């Protein structure tokens, strides 16, 4: 649904731009194509890596691991979340099923945050875009933030 909205915006913008200045619009499309080609290898590899991990480690096995409450289950969930990156539509159903299978809510809060913000699998792409130091700093701080959020939710929930 949202992607359709995005597509409509892109096409609309393209049309307006094309009417205003054809040459510049052509330049924009060339840019889009070139960065798309640059993105392609990374996208192929990342999606393949994620889907392989999700297939090899079924949700039930993950849940069995995380039924342990307390600090170990908490850190384990955050760690797995930090390793993988998944878009929201995948994350929330997964977190909900983990909750039904016994994972605690504060642990899931840090799991969701690391899953979406920290990604070891996507780190190579981030390094290519912004450099190694930036990537390491951002991901380390995000991991700390995720743990903090989880801990605070444990107190507040």
């Amino acid at each position, binding site marked *: 649904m949202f*992607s359709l909205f995005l597509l409509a915006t*892109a096409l609309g913008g393209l049309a307006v731009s094309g009417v205003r200045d054809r040459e510049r619009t052509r330049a*924009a499309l060339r840019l889009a194509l070139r960065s798309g080609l640059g*993105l392609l290898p990374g*996208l192929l590899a990342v999606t393949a890596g994620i889907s392989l991990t999700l*297939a090899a480690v079924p949700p039930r096995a993950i849940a069995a691991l995380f039924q342990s409450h307390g600090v170990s289950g908490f850190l384990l969930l955050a760690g797995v979340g930090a390793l993988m990156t998944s878009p929201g539509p995948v994350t929330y159903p997964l977190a909900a099923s983990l909750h039904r299978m016994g994972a605690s*809510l504060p642990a899931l809060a840090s799991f969701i945050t690391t899953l*979406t913000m920290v990604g070891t699998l996507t780190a190579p792409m981030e390094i290519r875009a912004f450099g190694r130091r930036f990537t390491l700093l951002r991901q380390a701080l995000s991991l700390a*933030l995720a743990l903090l959020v989880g801990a*605070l939710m444990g107190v507040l929930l």
Partner: protein
Amino acid sequence: MNPKLKSALRVLAVVLAVHLVLGALVPRVAGHSLRNWGRGLTEVAFIVPSVLILIGLFDVWVPKEVVARHLGRSSGLRGILLALLLGTGAAGPIYAAFPIGVTLLEKGARLANLVIFLGAWATIKLPMLMMESAFLGTRFAMLRLVLTLPGIIACGFLVEFLMSGQAADPPPSPGDCCPATRPIPAPPTAPCRPWKPPETWPSTGTRIPAAPPARSTPSPPQAASTSATGKPISKKS
């Protein structure tokens, strides 16, 4: 053949080979993984091209000056809010945000706002919030939002502070990372990079080639030299 296309094909070949081997050993996992991959790629195919077109239009129409003013050093609270808004308004996983971030940086956005943008993109998108409430409860979703939001902003300024400690050092070795990272260690005295007089930029030829090599090419020196000549433009006409 285009070298990028070639490396994409190489990745494709490796992935398929891995799945062939896996299929011989544990067919169920290989099938599942391939199905997942198909679904993931479909999602990517629906989102990424639109995002790329929007980036292209943004790059061509929005002058550097505007970005530097609204997201740059002196942007303050408005810049933070704008970065949050930009991040929450978009769709797709975080790696779709990287090229947008590169464009923002090139156009003079400050580093803190880039981190805030990436963080907002990753965890606090509006449609995702509704989904989170549906799956885990409104209280959970709201509490996580309220706790994450200030954290993301703090992360942004911490990253910027820690990166600025490196400002005196020489830029990272070529091949280590792309030219896009060079604007980062700009001295605080210069709020944005030297800005050419307005009469140069409406002729697209001078600025268009500046962006793309930054994103991808592993060898910055060569990329910079080809972009300086404006080859992509002259080739066309």
